[in-house]
């Protein structure tokens, strides 16, 4: 029993890290309808910026953290302006964007391989990782609780923005037809930049959390593939879906590893992805708009 | 004479919307009939039901005496049914000629092995398919555009290409969904001629949805009018034009 509780806690805490990242995926998907695999890249940009600001420039954590968020936000905007925008203007096939984003991810990762080297860096425990005892033997770390709360705060804010403001509506309209959204008076370039800025910011938050929880190295962005799977399971484009999907995925992983076999955990993750798509292509919370003939 | 198509009490719901309501009518072989009705009356939906694009909620569709409810879309052609679309659905990445060949090839066979090697019957068969497709293009007056990409044709021409593609299937029953949409009066006139022409030449049964009354009233001896998913009038054009319900729901008071 104690083990079960501990594994559930482990699962939720892993899920909360996924959630932070998955929300970013979903946000970009909700406007441009493509899966931005460069998200992992933004994440490590955030992580390294924070690391260098703390260690080389000697800033305090608040300044460093803030700088990292802004920096990653701008990196995301730059990526969008330099690579996605020209593609979007030439073709409407979103798969090209997807491939370009994978390319960007490789580029960013390897820029850090070259400039920061293959060494592992650890952020000082700016976010406390001390064990927190819940009930009995069950433990989690303070970091996990903070990351869960952060994920919910961002999610709530974004959700309100998207559903309650006219800019949110504009985002959804732009998602379906950028040109026509322009004809409605929406400055779509600016709108998209804002979305990417927020996505970059979210990625940086995820990057800092991940660097503290694990360690900082150029391939750290790889973990985002799980967050991506979570976003799909929850329903791409749905922010609550992203969070729910993440928690489900975290639980599935930990329970598989804990009670079946740790080798099978990724198999379970990807099988869940495939099964979800077959049963409900738009995920748990995605809405299914059928094409009219 | 037997009915080539019989609709018997068709019903279709989309969520709360009762899009098709107890619709029954039938088409005799060789008829040229019009289907009219206000926007959202359910006309396109009826085409979609006949061709199996949407499943039927209740009722029967009988073609040549055979019940074809729950037909798979791809089996419609096998029963001799072809259609065009309200929103053009051409193969935009293929040439005009290829569009028609794609339809026409079903009447000619060669084996997979021949396809993979271009040996045997391949060459001869391909030539036949091509020649036939050219004939259909000439019918709709597009032969000169055979090598253009389908998507670059002007709108009105694309509509005619859809008709040629449907004809190449050699159907018995042709369903046309707003073939004159976006055409100017001049072109509508030409289209009238085309429809009447193919109707005769290919011995077709045609059901056409249109909002251009100058087309329907001129060429369709049999007109069905829908409103809110239900048939409100059926008969020859003169009768329909004078039907007060049709006037009120669809044509507006004064009709010339």
């Amino acid at each position, binding site marked *: 029993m*104690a*083990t079960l509780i*501990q*594994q559930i806690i*482990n699962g939720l*805490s*892993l899920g909360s890290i996924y959630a932070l990242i998955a929300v970013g995926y979903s946000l970009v998907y909700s406007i441009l309808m493509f899966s931005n695999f460069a998200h992992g890249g933004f994440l490590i940009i955030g992580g390294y910026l924070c690391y260098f600001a703390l260690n080389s420039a000697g800033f305090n954590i608040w300044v460093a953290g803030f700088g990292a968020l802004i920096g990653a936000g701008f990196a995301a905007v730059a990526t969008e302006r330099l690579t996605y925008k020209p593609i979007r203007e030439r073709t409407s096939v979103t798969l090209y964007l997807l491939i370009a984003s994978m390319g960007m991810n490789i580029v960013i990762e390897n820029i850090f*391989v070259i400039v920061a*080297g*293959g*060494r*592992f*860096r*650890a952020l000082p425990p700016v976010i406390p*990782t*001390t*064990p927190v*005892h819940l009930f009995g*033997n069950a*433990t989690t*770390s303070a970091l996990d609780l903070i990351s869960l709360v952060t994920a919910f705060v961002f999610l709530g804010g974004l959700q309100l923005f998207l559903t309650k403001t006219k800019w949110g509506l504009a985002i959804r309209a732009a998602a379906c037809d950028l040109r026509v959204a322009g004809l409605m008076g929406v400055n779509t370039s600016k709108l998209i930049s804002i979305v990417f800025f927020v996505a970059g910011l979210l990625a940086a938050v995820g990057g800092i959390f991940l660097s503290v929880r*694990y*360690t900082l*190295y150029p*391939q750290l962005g*790889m*973990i985002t593939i799980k967050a991506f799977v979570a976003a799909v399971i929850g329903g791409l484009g749905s922010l609550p879906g992203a969070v729910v999907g993440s928690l489900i995925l975290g639980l599935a*992983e*930990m329970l598989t*590893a*804990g009670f079946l*076999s*740790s*080798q099978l*955990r*990724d198999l379970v993750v990807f099988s869940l992805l495939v099964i979800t798509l077959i049963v409900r292509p738009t995920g748990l919370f995605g809405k299914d708009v059928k094409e009219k003939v | 004479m037997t009915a080539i198509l019989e609709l018997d009490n068709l019903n279709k719901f989309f969520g709360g919307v009762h899009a098709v309501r107890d619709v029954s009518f039938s088409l005799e072989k060789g008829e040229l009939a019009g289907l009219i009705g206000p926007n959202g009356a359910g006309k396109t939906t009826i085409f979609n039901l006949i061709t199996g694009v949407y499943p039927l909620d209740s009722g029967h569709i009988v073609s040549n005496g055979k019940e074809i409810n729950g037909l798979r879309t791809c089996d419609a052609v096998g029963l001799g049914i072809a259609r065009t679309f309200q929103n053009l659905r051409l193969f935009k990445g293929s040439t005009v000629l290829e569009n028609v060949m794609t339809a026409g090839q079903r009447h000619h066979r060669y084996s997979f092995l021949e396809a993979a090697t271009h040996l045997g019957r391949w060459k001869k068969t391909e030539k036949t398919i091509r020649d036939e497709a050219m004939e259909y293009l000439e019918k709709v007056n597009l032969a000169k555009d055979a090598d253009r990409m389908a998507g670059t044709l002007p709108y009105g021409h694309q509509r005619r290409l859809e008709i040629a593609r449907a004809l190449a299937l050699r159907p018995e029953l042709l369903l046309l969904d707003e073939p004159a949409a976006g055409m100017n009066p001049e072109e509508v006139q030409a289209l009238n001629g085309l429809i009447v022409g193919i109707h005769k030449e290919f011995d077709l049964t045609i059901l056409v949805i249109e909002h251009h009354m100058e087309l329907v009233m001129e060429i369709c001896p049999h007109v069905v009018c829908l409103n809110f998913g239900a048939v409100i009038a059926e008969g020859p054009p003169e009768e329909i034009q004078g039907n007060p319900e049709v006037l009120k729901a669809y044509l507006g008071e004064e009709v010339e």
Partner: protein
Amino acid sequence: EETVKIGYLAALTGDWAAYGQTEKNTAQLAVDEINAKGGIDGRKVELVVYDFRGRQEDAVNAVRRLLEEDKVSAIVGANASGINIATAALVNRAEVPQIGTVSTNPMVTVDRKGKVRPYSFRICFTDPYQGKLIAWFAAKELGKTKAAVLYDIASDYAQGLREFFIKSFEEYGGETVADEAFKGAQDVDFRAQLTKIREAGADVLVLPNMGKEMALIMKQARELGMDDLVFVGGDGYAEFMWEIAGKSMENSYWINHVSPSDPNMAKFFEDYEAKYNDECKEFVNGILGYDAMYWLFDAIDRADSTDSVKIAQALADTKDLQLHHATITMDEFHNPLNKDGIVLIAKDGKGQFFKKIKPE
């Protein structure tokens, strides 16, 4: 004058970059030293280093290139059994010798049928012995009875060492209460396995893996509140682990090939520092990479030829060769005989010599 081309297979990027960068540096140091002395019997040495990013696929490609394009006389590296096993077929077909630096799995030098691979060599001890060292240390020196193993299923080395350890530990009367796996280079979260280990009541956790994963495991174990668990690791010990695991590293034990305070190596450390302005942090790889080069120089000298077949013969015939860290003699399976087992302890932020052990 004829030069000798030697290939070096190093992980310069990826998870193992710290190990590989050090090896590359020490190999270059050895080459510079020998060339400064006029080369081997007048033959200058040329070093060709390729990165394999910690992946077999890249290693295989790099070796192909060394063999086909650079036509090297011998290859040194890599620093992991899996890499050497993957490349063994190639070098043996091409008849070019390859020396593994810390590649400890038996399969590095023998094939699936148990026959020695004529062109594969190593300078370190093997895992049956290492497994025994770990088991002896845990059972006899630390007095532990309930061991847990958490090993990398993607690694030939980890799978082998786990097996050898468990066998020996049971022979010494201990019990393996948890035997958990993960996937190296992919997994970063080990809390599920650690929870099971905690539940099993293990008193020692044996880590036969590469550095990054071991560091993350130790860190997460302490975060789960597993404060009393003692860590005993294999020869994957690396200084870069401190950066990841921090204080969680303190008081862990590591079975290894060499000691950082070996007086015979003092000059090496000095020279390294002078040349690279950096202390040779990953000293295990540093020392073994350095001596592997010297071993090869000696073999070339004895073969008196740049012909790879003759060099391989000379390597196989090595007997009582005095290198810097040890004196080596090859056995019939191309493994050096009677190498020391050294225990390091992680203390005050670095790895320190703890003791030398010799299990019965």
